[in-house]
């Protein structure tokens, strides 16, 4: 047995090819897992650090669950509740907390509003933990450590802070350890009086923090407090508060996790393709070797054991190398995500056992299965047949693949289309459709490979003559292998192409909306990204109203509310001015005119879905005021900003505590030169740096940047699979050159020049790469259409094929095929004619 193993080990070249394939595949799989874990735990760590000093928090119950990226707004508590809670036995200390909008302005006069998360101010709590300095006194502030570090703010620095009702300058007296119980981009803490003055309302507080006496359990005290609380208030453990915050953080990056999962899936498929492909190349050789060993007297059982031992050893060691690569790749991907401007809290890369396990299981299993098949075949046929390798020639591609393949592809396409057009349940139909298309393609690709290779190589043959036509023959000679190699690239190109199409369509739709419906001269938005949780303080609109060059000011606010168990969002508008800023169709304009301070407008499709008519009552649960039944005053189909529900600003003020503004639309007054007027408005607003004043083209640019910010890291991640696909081509070429050594020697002997040999290999790579890229392009167009069509209702009204971008993608991938061919081509050209000819392997 030992001798058999040694015999097997002599073919280092073959083992290297397999090991490379396994390493790449495992690297991709475990890298993806490591990245997912790292992102999840980064958010966990940022929120659930155990530096909470209170054990229990008393607060108003939430009327509904908040959407991702924000915590539910809660009704304030009457200050009188403090005394009642204090009377509960087992409490060591308790203190009120007040919380509200507070935006810091950095030294350069820019607002600190990263990442679209809220910027909050709170009252100093006795249990707050400081990294440096001391608790703030009047005129002082303590800011969170992340912000201090990121914006180079130090103890003793002066800092301006904007509040809802005004602004004040403070001296930084302390640096807070990152807090556990809020989802916020920045946090500033003030002494209780200052906090109440700027953040709260007289006689009202946001919550009560409670510290339990040593020896009494938080759970018991929580129960006791809950027993004396009036309805609509609750006591919860600090731990639960932290958990809620952590979940919300994680949800804020939720859009990435489908991309990551998709990437992991793609990694598995592409990895398995790569490994299986490598084995299919080596199968003939391997079978001959095993046949020889059998002819020399090795028993089938011995051979099977040998092959499995070999596969385990190779699979295991290559998998371990792959995990190391994956670890590095995860670092790279994380840098990529951060580089794209997405806020992932600082944290070290998390390496869980399951990342390694997933990689090893995938690597070893696929290797063993792929290795065992030829071994089984070699032990089933006679030794002589195995020796001749006659039994191992890849089966010819049979025509019977065409029927089922075409049927599956067509069915899939129909399902996908039906899903996108909402004729069938979208998610199920699209998923089943996409699956069917992929299965169909798997059946069809080997059939397509031949004709496609001929087609693609036709211009090459005209350019390069005989070498190109030999390359075409090589690509056609093993259609299944060509198909598998191209498929790996196809998947990557397809995914990146879909993202490109969706991005272009979203941008075009946004542009169209601004071009065709925006009538405002200027649009003022928050510096961070506009979301339900970030926003402009009321002072912005106030100041604009007092600027002489400004004619009309129209605010739009956004808020969340509960409809039964679901959480919905609404917009609050000024019915008198909104249609002067945004053009909407006649019916919607009429609806806006009918909106009063007690009713609600509903999108027509939503009303239809719920079976509501004008005059019906919608039960709307607001955090502050509980459930109210608002009559429907009208139905609309288009609105200034995409929404399903609209109420008036008055009604909003009555039901929401924090009147943060999403957008302020401005029409300049008549009688001023437009350029000067605009410049003046900008000047007036310049010391309110939270507000970004944008004209039409700036608004467009900011929207495009926003779309890029979210989609480009996804595209970059998926781009990795393109890279792996190209490596797959390099690997397949290197192995088939290894396999065809004698053939290359013969070609050289009968007069093929080195340069011709190189161009032959390059042409082969280009043919495979072009085949894969073109297929990917086809997939991208199909799936891109499906995606865009499916989200038409969400405002993506335009379907745009970014022809230039897609062309570059396909061109670059095809050209990269040339890069993939560099090393194999050089190796082939450097073969010594006699060595290659004499090669009796």
């Amino acid at each position, binding site marked *: 047995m030992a001798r058999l193993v040694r015999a097997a080990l002599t073919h280092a070249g073959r083992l290297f090819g397999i090991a490379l394939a396994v390493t790449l595949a495992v690297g991709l799989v475990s890298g993806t897992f490591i990245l997912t874990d790292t992102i999840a735990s980064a958010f966990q760590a940022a929120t659930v650090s155990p530096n909470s000093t209170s054990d229990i928090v008393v607060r108003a119950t939430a009327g509904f669950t908040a959407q991702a990226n924000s915590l539910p707004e809660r009704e304030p508590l009457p200050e009188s509740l403090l005394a009642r809670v204090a009377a509960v036995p087992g409490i060591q200390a308790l203190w009120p907390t007040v919380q509200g909008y507070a935006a810091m302005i950095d030294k350069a006069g820019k607002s600190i509003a990263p990442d679209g998360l809220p910027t909050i101010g709170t009252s100093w709590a006795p249990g707050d933990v400081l990294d440096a300095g001391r608790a703030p006194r009047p005129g002082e502030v303590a800011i969170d450590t992340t912000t201090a570090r990121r914006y180079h703010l130090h103890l003793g620095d002066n800092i301006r802070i904007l509040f809802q009702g005004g602004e004040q300058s403070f001296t930084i007296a302390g640096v807070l350890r990152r807090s556990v119980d809020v989802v916020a981009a920045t946090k500033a803490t003030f002494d209780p009086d200052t906090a109440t003055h700027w953040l709260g309302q007289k006689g009202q507080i946001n919550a009560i923090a409670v510290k339990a006496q040593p020896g009494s359990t938080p759970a018991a005290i929580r129960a006791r407090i809950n027993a004396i609380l009036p309805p609509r208030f609750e006591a919860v453990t600090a731990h639960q508060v932290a958990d809620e915050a952590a979940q919300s953080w994680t949800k804020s990056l939720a859009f990435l996790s489908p991309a990551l999962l998709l990437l992991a899936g793609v990694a598995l498929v592409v990895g398995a393709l790569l490994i299986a492909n490598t084995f299919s190349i080596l199968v003939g050789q391997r079978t001959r070797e095993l046949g020889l060993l059998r002819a020399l007297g090795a028993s089938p059982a011995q051979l099977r054991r040998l092959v499995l031992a070999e596969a385990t050893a190779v699979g295991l060691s290559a998998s371990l190398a792959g995990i190391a690569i994956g670890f590095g790749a995860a670092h790279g991907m994380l840098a990529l995500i951060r580089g794209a401007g997405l806020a992932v809290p600082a944290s070290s890369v998390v390496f869980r056992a399951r990342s390694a396990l997933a990689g090893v299981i995938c690597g070893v299993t696929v290797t063993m299965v792929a290795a065992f098949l030829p071994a089984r075949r070699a032990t089933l046929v006679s030794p002589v047949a195995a020796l001749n390798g006659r039994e191992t020639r890849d089966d010819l591609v049979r025509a019977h693949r065409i029927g089922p393949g075409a049927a599956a592809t067509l069915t899939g396409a129909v399902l996908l289309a039906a899903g996108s057009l909402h004729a069938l349940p979208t998610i199920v139909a699209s998923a089943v459709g996409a699956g069917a298309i992929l299965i169909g393609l798997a059946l069809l690709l080997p059939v397509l490979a031949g004709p496609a290779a001929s087609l693609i190589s036709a211009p090459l043959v005209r350019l390069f*003559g*005989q*070498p190109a*036509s*030999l390359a075409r*023959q*090589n690509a*056609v*000679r093993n259609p299944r292998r060509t198909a598998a190699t191209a498929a790996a690239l196809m998947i990557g190109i397809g995914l990146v192409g879909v993202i490109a199409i969706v991005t272009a369509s979203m941008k075009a739709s946004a542009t169209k909306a601004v071009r065709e419906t925006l009538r405002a001269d200027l649009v003022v938005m928050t510096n961070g990204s506009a979301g339900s949780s970030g926003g402009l303080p009321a002072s912005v609109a106030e100041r604009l109203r007092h600027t002489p060059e400004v004619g009309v000011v129209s605010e739009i606010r956004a808020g969340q509310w509960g409809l039964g168990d679901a959480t919905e969002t609404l917009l609050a508008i000024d019915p008198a001015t909104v249609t002067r800023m945004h053009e909407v169709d006649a019916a919607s304009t009429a609806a806006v005119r009918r909106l009063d301070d007690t009713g609600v407008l509903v999108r027509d499709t939503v009303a239809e879905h719920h079976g509501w008519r004008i005059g019906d009552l919608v039960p709307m649960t607001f955090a502050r005021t509980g459930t109210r039944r608002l009559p429907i005053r009208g139905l609309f189909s288009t609105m200034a900003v995409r929404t399903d529900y609209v109420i008036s600003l008055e009604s909003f003020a009555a039901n929401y505590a924090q009147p943060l503004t999403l957008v302020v639309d401005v029409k300049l007054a008549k009688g001023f030169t437009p350029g000067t007027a605009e410049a003046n408005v900008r000047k007036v607003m310049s010391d309110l740096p939270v507000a970004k004043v944008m004209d039409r083209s700036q608004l467009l640019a900011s929207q495009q940047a926003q779309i890029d910010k979210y989609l480009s890291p996804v595209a970059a991640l998926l781009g990795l699979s393109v890279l792996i696909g190209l490596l797959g081509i390099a690997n397949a070429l290197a192995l088939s050159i290894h396999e065809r050594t*004698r*053939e290359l020697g*013969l*070609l*050289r*002997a*009968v*007069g*093929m*020049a*080195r340069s*011709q040999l190189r161009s032959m290999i390059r042409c082969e790579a280009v043919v495979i790469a072009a085949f894969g890229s073109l297929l990917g392009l086809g997939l991208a167009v199909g799936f891109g259409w499906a995606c865009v069509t499916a989200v038409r209702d969400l405002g993506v009204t335009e379907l745009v094929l970014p022809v230039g971008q897609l062309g570059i993608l396909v061109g670059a991938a095809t050209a990269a095929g040339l890069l993939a061919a560099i090393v194999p081509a050089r190796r082939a050209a450097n073969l010594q*004619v*006699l060595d290659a*000819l004499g090669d009796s392997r």
Partner: protein
Amino acid sequence: MTMLMTAPQLVESWARIAAEAPAPAARAVDAVKIHGRGNTVVRALDGVTVELEHNRFTAIMGPSGSGKSTLLHCLAGLDTLTSGHVYVGDKDLGDLSERALTRLRRDRLGFIFQAYNLLPTLTAAENITLPLALAGRRADPLWLELVVDVVGLSDRLNHRPSELSGGEQLRVAAARALVSRPEIIFADEPTGSLDSRAGSSLLCFLRRAVDDFGQTIVMVTHDPVAASYADRIVFLADGRVVDEMLEPSVERAVEHMKHLGS
């Protein structure tokens, strides 16, 4: 040479040109080839001087390991000498670059190997015209037809190597060697893997190529029967030319080989 000539005319004119040329088709002068390094050094060729005439069928014989293949490879520009010279026509191969050697092989030499002569992806016809295609030239259709006819492959042209017998494959290789009208065809034990009938049919073809078309052929062989088809046998032993024989017969060749102690 124009398309106006008939095939026999073509052959005739070509044979005439060959016959008039004064220099030998190829020759080796003091050829030394040392394989390996250090204490595994082998002097495969130890000062070989030999001339190979035009329009002749020369066989090279000798015991295993005597340097036959090495000599053939060096004459054909597939390998380089350690010292000495080999010439094809009046060109010293030692002066030629890799690129020029490749062009020489493509345009002026033909090869028949013992095994593995054909590209599995190409049909018999495509294999035959491969060197011409590599040079970007078209085969002369009349000549091609004639060659194919002579090797008896007319009905096998669209078959791939895997669909041909070993003998047929060798005949395809022979047709390929002939079709570009090389100055010399080199063959290394072409009949080694064939049974006697297939072997003799290939040898008959080579003989005809020399007699009818004025081809020059150099063939390495072990087999006295094969060697007896040649006009002349050159005997090698331990890397040296030890003897030669004109107008050989099977019996004399066998006798000679015994003498060499193989």
